């Protein structure tokens, strides 16, 4: 199996590692970089538990090879409260009880982050479609939607305050 050198930026930190060509990005993140907040829930790109942001876009990291991420900027759940303060999405999920077992939560939050970057003022229906690539078995989604609405409002208010 051929080995390749991969250099990428993850959560603001530049890393270089040698990986097998077939190493899935999610395994690279979880096992080579020990960032276990990104989870695995299926093998058919259906559940979204492995969602990370690559150059700002939500990507299911189980369906991408690590070598394909060479040169990319990756954000995982571990980046969100890096400054010690919770991101409005994390706050929203906590406030609104947007999680139960917590397994889908990192992927759900990263998916929502990518979605809100594209659509900062979404309707409820747009949120539901926006996260439809992420499965949650515990919550029934209502409180996840509320959590994302909470974050959208807070992010909008912060933007307005900044202008």
């Amino acid at each position, binding site marked *: 199996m051929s080995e390749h050198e991969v250099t990428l930026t993850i959560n603001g930190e530049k890393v270089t590692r040698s990986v097998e060509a077939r190493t899935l990005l999610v395994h690279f993140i979880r096992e080579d970089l020990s960032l*276990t907040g990104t989870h695995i*829930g299926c093998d058919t790109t259906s559940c979204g538990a492995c969602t990370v942001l690559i150059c700002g876009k939500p990507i299911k990291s189980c369906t991408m090879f690590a070598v394909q991420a060479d040169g990319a900027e990756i954000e995982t759940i571990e980046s969100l409260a890096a400054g010690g303060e919770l991101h409005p999405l994390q706050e929203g999920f906590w406030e609104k009880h947007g999680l139960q077992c917590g*397994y889908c939560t990192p992927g759900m939050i990263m998916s929502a982050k990518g979605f809100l970057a594209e659509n900062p003022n979404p309707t409820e229906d747009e949120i539901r479609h926006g996260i439809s690539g992420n499965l949650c078995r515990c919550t029934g989604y209502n409180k996840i939607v509320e959590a994302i609405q909470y974050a959208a409002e807070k992010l909008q208010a912060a933007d307005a305050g900044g202008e």
Partner: protein
Amino acid sequence: MPQLDDRKEPHSELAEGVSARVPTTDEVQIKTPEKICGMGHRKKRKEDPRFIQGKGNYVDDVKLPGMLYMDIVRSPYAHAKINSIDASAALEMDGVLAVITGEDLKAAGDLHWMPTLMSDTQMVLPIDKVVYYAQEICAVIATSRYIAADAIEQVYVDYEPLDAVVDPFEAMKDKVIVRDDKEKKTNHIWHWEAGDKAATDAVFKDAATVVKEKLYIPRIHVSSIETCGMVANYNKARSHMQIYMTSQAPHAHRTVFALVSGLPEHKIQIISPDIGGGFGGKVPVYPGYVICAVASLVTGKPVKWIEDRSENLQADSFARDYHIEAEMAADKNGKITGLRVKTLSDCGAADAAANPSKFPAGLYSICTGSYDMKAAHVEVDGVYTTKPPGGVAYRCSFRVTEAVHMIERMADIMAHQLGEDPADYRLKNFIRPDQFPYKSPTGWEYDSGNYEAALKKAMDMIDYRTLREEQKQKRAKGELMGIGISSFTEVVGAGPSKDYDILGIKMFDSAEIRIHPTGKAMARFGTKSQGQGHETTYAQIIAEELGLPSDDIEVEEGDTDTAPYGLGTYASRSTPTAGAAAVMASRKIKAKAKKIAAHLLEVGEGDLEWNIDRFEVKGSPDQAKTIQEIAFAAYTNHPQGMEAGLEAVDYYDPPNLTFPFGSYICVVDIDKGTGEVAIRRFVAVDDCGHIINPLIVEGQIHGGLTMGLAPALYEEIVYDENGQNLTGTLADYLVPTAVESPKWELGKTITPSPHHPIGAKGVGESPTVGAPPAIANAVVDALWHLGVRHIDIPITPPKVWKLLRDNGVTD
């Protein structure tokens, strides 16, 4: 020797619960201030900060030095003889350390078979025959996940295919014998009955109206987003086995491992870390767990096994798979008088259900539901087929979902048949509030209920009468709109030790509370949260009882070395059992605290009264000692002759089960062109007794409703005639997304349990139980005038479209 009765004594003194027939309210009771945050507060969950930051610790996150990886070779046939297994090519691969076969397990002490939770047997690894598709054949142990996956492709198995038997009715004919290891060459496993057959037959003889229906409750899968897995870490020097495992019942699993493996139980530590959803799927012991533990024993190294999703969907325990024939009788006034039910339970290749031992069909005899009737009789037969063994609960208390679906469909069919409004018909037939505690015709004693209040509230919330008017107008225009009701009775909290055990272990549960000198506390439980929020809920219960702020209480579960023994979390049993144990342990602590307070205040115990977080001298509340002051004194200034410390353990044996209930109303619109069912509104009124945390209860109900929607409209595990699973990935097995899941509208009534010490009942599964018939009833209600009487779930667009076409609605 302590007498049994002596040991029970503290319970009867401390269990000052809620007396019977407390009126139903809809106000959540709050007694403690915000800073203590006891029962009734909408407290944000204590466990969430780690999850929202990606700092949870699930089994696949466990990484130990020198850890090996296991992968499993699985059968491509549902039924086949194994002529040989050739693993030589796999063993020659770099990084492959071992291949474990059934022969190896046999040599290791007959570990190739294991008991199921129902005292049947199940293969861990086969020697000469496989009995279901995706059955474990052998396991490869390698230095990496990828090498293990490569190596399973290099194991060559010579199979000789045999006829599969997929249909349980065919299986009953015994043409193909699934379990030829058994002495009796038959697929029939057990026959079970409840109720009074003669009385029921008599009621049917006198009936004015009888309705009959065949219902199939299909095989489904819990499909928690985290699959199952284990890290087994055997330390030869210590003769100690440490196991990280996706377990809903770590103590019971430790005992099973000890019994199966022969390892002494004190040398086995099971740690169930954060669990990514369970829903019953993490109650059974699967072959993969046993092989993984053996692999660590053999190699002396830590071994990790994590299922793929396809393995999870194809081989892990299923739920449901009940084929039901039901008849309901009514008198000339339309009053329901009797119920007669015959059911065939497709068990797959082993009876590996997760039911209490004495209940092969679980609590299915709750099937008379919310209706008062003279007689009922229910029979169930279990049968083997060449499909994976089961069945687990799928967020339900032991077969209650099957029972509720049947009775709620039958009540609806009867109402329609008699031309009565389904809501009015239910109101007429409900068990009345003054009949509680109610003895059901199949032998249950329902603890409390007010079914009328819940249904009327749901009808008000959704404006039921106006909807019926709208339906009339729409029907006149040829539009298809339906309104469905489900007024369910749940039965949870197993259970009283006289009737409930799993493999002989009584179904009590436990709490241990230690209060530290500075007034902070550690509480440990025999249960194990998989997302239910125990760290918050249990802390609130203790806060309510002892006045310690719930943030000052650390709740820990899932480590068998530290937690008191308990039977685990499933069947909505945590609040009814371990929640009650938390109350009892708190009250034991409070009894000691009172003695310490009396000593500190130099008064008699009789002069003291409890007020939220302190003992006060009666009539002189300024003279008081807070729980924190008492805790400090328990270690620094306790009375002479008294043991130091402030802690207690309680093993709570519930006197009865609890019976949560609710009424759901669903409104659907059906697309005549495609047969697609759109849920326009869904109102759910739940009554789970006293509420500990309304935020968590709402979350449990939302999630349960979506897991009720799932089998009603989307999910089914399907096999072809050869027993091949056609729904083995999440691309084929349709778990609802945020788009399919409606905006649930919740209401509540509160009718406390009279026997639970804080009047709580359990809630996590009620909605999964109650929702499917509300949806199915709505669809049939929309189509009744066309002659449609029943549609089996999942009600998919092709099924509806075909019915519309057959009835001339759609071309």
